[in-house]
């Protein structure tokens, strides 16, 4: 009988538990990085006692430095901004912008109350119509007041995703075709080269005219302004996906193609089983770029065409020229930036989820 040192055994078990614990942390770390929270894992590890000095160095790099740079930015902003005096007063600093952000939230709550009142009135009206025997005239009518700031954000997000989905639905199949067949590639290439650099502001008048002509009734599923913005987004965000997809498909391993020949795969199976999986990382890179482009384009399109959304908010405030306008525009700029960042993260998360690349 070998006497086992109980202390040693306990230590061993502790070691094993720690190992499991760390595996879990490492696994979670992949997801934290996707969400842009890469600093959490080293922090936990440091707390768990794994090389605290090294881990804290990571925490400093992943959390401390970014925070410090934000603080430096805010300090520069608040000292430099008051020095630029425009016709609307000095450029607002961070404090004024924060006050205005709270003001916008307050505006939104006031508007929600108004909307509740409106809905109440509408219900009353409909009830009266029913009582008067005119039930056929009862209608559900959307609130007619001006949208809240949150409403504008939501409109922009819906529009960008709608345009982006149409763009993807067009770009991925075309990209696959161009990647598989040199003939298709030769046909598409000049069009890509010519249309890719076109600015959204040039597309907009054409899209507006075409939508007005084709979508004559304005009481369909979508409003005209929504379609105009979304289609402009489509036209501009098509290209990165298209180019990356064709590149990804074209650079598929030759051996795999040979295997598909040996197995006598039909085209459909070949695309779904071989081409797509191996091209997926590049397709996703294209999609991420497309969504980023789409978001930028959307704001410009909304500003120019006065279509509802964040772009219109910015333009309206520019035109208002009140003493709060500049601060409100800066709130919108920060919102646009943060949402753009979040959209990119969403795409990155989807990429990590669907592909088996080393990036995971």
């Amino acid at each position: 009988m070998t006497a086992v040192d109980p202390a040693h055994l306990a230590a061993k078990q502790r070691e094993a538990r720690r190992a499991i614990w760390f595996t879990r942390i490492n696994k979670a770390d992949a997801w934290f990085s996707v969400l842009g929270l890469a600093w959490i894992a080293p922090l936990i590890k440091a707390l768990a006692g794994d090389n605290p000095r090294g881990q804290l160095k990571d925490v400093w790099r992943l959390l401390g430095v970014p925070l410090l740079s934000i603080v430096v930015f805010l300090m520069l902003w608040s000292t430099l901004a008051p020095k630029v005096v425009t016709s609307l007063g000095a450029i607002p600093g961070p404090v004024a912008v924060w006050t205005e952000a709270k003001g916008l939230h307050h505006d939104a709550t006031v508007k929600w109350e108004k909307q509740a009142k409106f809905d109440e009135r509408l219900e009353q009206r409909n009830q009266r119509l029913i009582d008067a025997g005119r039930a056929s005239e009862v209608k559900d009518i959307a609130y007619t007041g001006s949208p809240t700031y949150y409403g504008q954000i939501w409109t922009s997000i819906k529009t960008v995703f709608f345009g982006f989905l149409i763009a993807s639905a067009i770009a991925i199949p075309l990209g696959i075709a161009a990647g598989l067949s040199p003939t298709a590639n030769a046909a598409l290439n000049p069009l890509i080269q010519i249309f890719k650099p076109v600015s959204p502001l040039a597309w907009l008048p054409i899209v507006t005219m075409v939508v007005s002509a084709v979508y004559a009734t304005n009481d369909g599923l979508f409003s005209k302004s929504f379609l105009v913005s979304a289609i402009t987004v489509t036209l501009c965000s098509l290209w990165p996906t298209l180019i990356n997809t064709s590149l990804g498909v074209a650079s598929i391993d030759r051996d795999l193609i040979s295997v598909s020949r040996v197995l006598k795969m039909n085209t459909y199976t070949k695309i779904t089983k071989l081409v797509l999986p191996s091209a997926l990382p590049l397709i996703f890179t294209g999609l991420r770029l497309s969504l980023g482009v789409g978001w930028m384009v959307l704001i410009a399109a909304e500003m120019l065409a006065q279509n509802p959304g964040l772009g219109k908010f910015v333009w309206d405030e520019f035109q208002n020229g009140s003493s709060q306008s500049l601060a409100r525009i800066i709130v919108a700029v920060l919102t646009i930036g943060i949402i753009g960042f979040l959209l990119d993260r969403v795409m990155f998360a989807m990429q990590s989820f669907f592909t088996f690349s080393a990036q995971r």
Partner: protein
Amino acid sequence: MKKLVFSLLASTLLSGPALAQMLDLEKDELTFGFIKLTDMAPLAVAYENGYFLDEGLFVTLEAQANWKVLLDGVIGGQLDGAHMLAGQPLAATIGYGTQAHIVTPFSMDLNGNGITVSNEVWAQMKPNIPTDTDGKPQHPISASALKPVVESYQAAGKPFNMGMVFPVSTHNYELRYWLAAGGLNPGFYSPDDTSGQIGADVALSVTPPPQMPATLEAGTINGYSVGEPWNQQAVVKDIGVPVITDYELWKNNPEKVFGITEAFATENPNTTIALTKALIRAAIWLDENDNANRAEAVEILSRPEYVGADQDVIAASMTGTFEYEKGDIRDVPDFNVFFRYNATYPFYSDAVWYLTQMRRWGQISEPRDDAWFDKTARSVYRPDIYLRAARLLVDEGLASEADFPWDSDGYRAPTPAADVIDGIPYDGKAPNAYLDSLPIGLKSDEPANG
């Protein structure tokens, strides 16, 4: 409890004659466009005071980027109607610019504009302006005080640029009127040259209203003609000085109109009457009890979704005063007229005046006889719709019989010479004779050519 209060409130608001006499509406969800200017007030008031809802109309108001976008919106059907420059429905109907038959059952206001010059130009003009006994510049200021300044620019080989909001805008014609009355040529249009700068002493170009102060500040233009609050904004921001209001140019001149397409008016006759009723009520509210409601109107207009400028800037003109040079505040009780003096009635003579100005500067390139002016005015201005709406309001007890010109033939009494800055009287029934009486501009038989 809250819900109970709301429903009580709603039922009181909806009870009474409003619904009982509600017209059989062809279309009850409407979108109207407007430009951020104080004279869109009837629209904001009709919305905020619930006059549209009283008529069963569910209206959405949308600010537009500029007059071109707004006009295209109405023609393309994205907008059911809009706050328009009086020249827009006329020009569209006769096919100058975009061709479309647009009509107006409601004139939105009288006066409300001003001409502003930059501080630098003002300093150069000031020596040419006689002063009152108290040392202040004597108003109205003629463009003849600007003439030496423009000549000094010409001598230095620099263009003298001024901004207006749209080629067929009131502001373009008012600025041209003022310049011409002071002996300066604002330039002509022709079918080949639509810049409007043929033979011009002063080069006029288009800038959207809210951008005027910024453009002046940037030095792109030396002055501009625009509606409120963008003249007072220049004073507040200390970048320019309003030299004259349109009230001093032509006392109680017609301004904006509410425009809808002819097709909309034909397809939705009851809706058209209902929206006209709501707008007339709003105009009455804006002027009643000697402008008693103006402070409240200023608060409504200052909200970001309407004009959005600071309250004190909007109040400067809306409450009956006007600040010229900083500190020089004068009473102009009729600066903004929304209902008095039959402001809301769409007079043919107002339309004819705009047509004479299009003819005077060559936008209408060929000579036209007096009958043509009358016919065109009648196809755009629709007092028949206006009077039907007014009759309903009187019957409902919401307006008084005496406030409307029931028996008018659609022409205002001729404007006497004393009411116009250059002392040239205007009679809407004799447009060609009027054209011949203006010293600068195309004569009645003179075609435009570049």
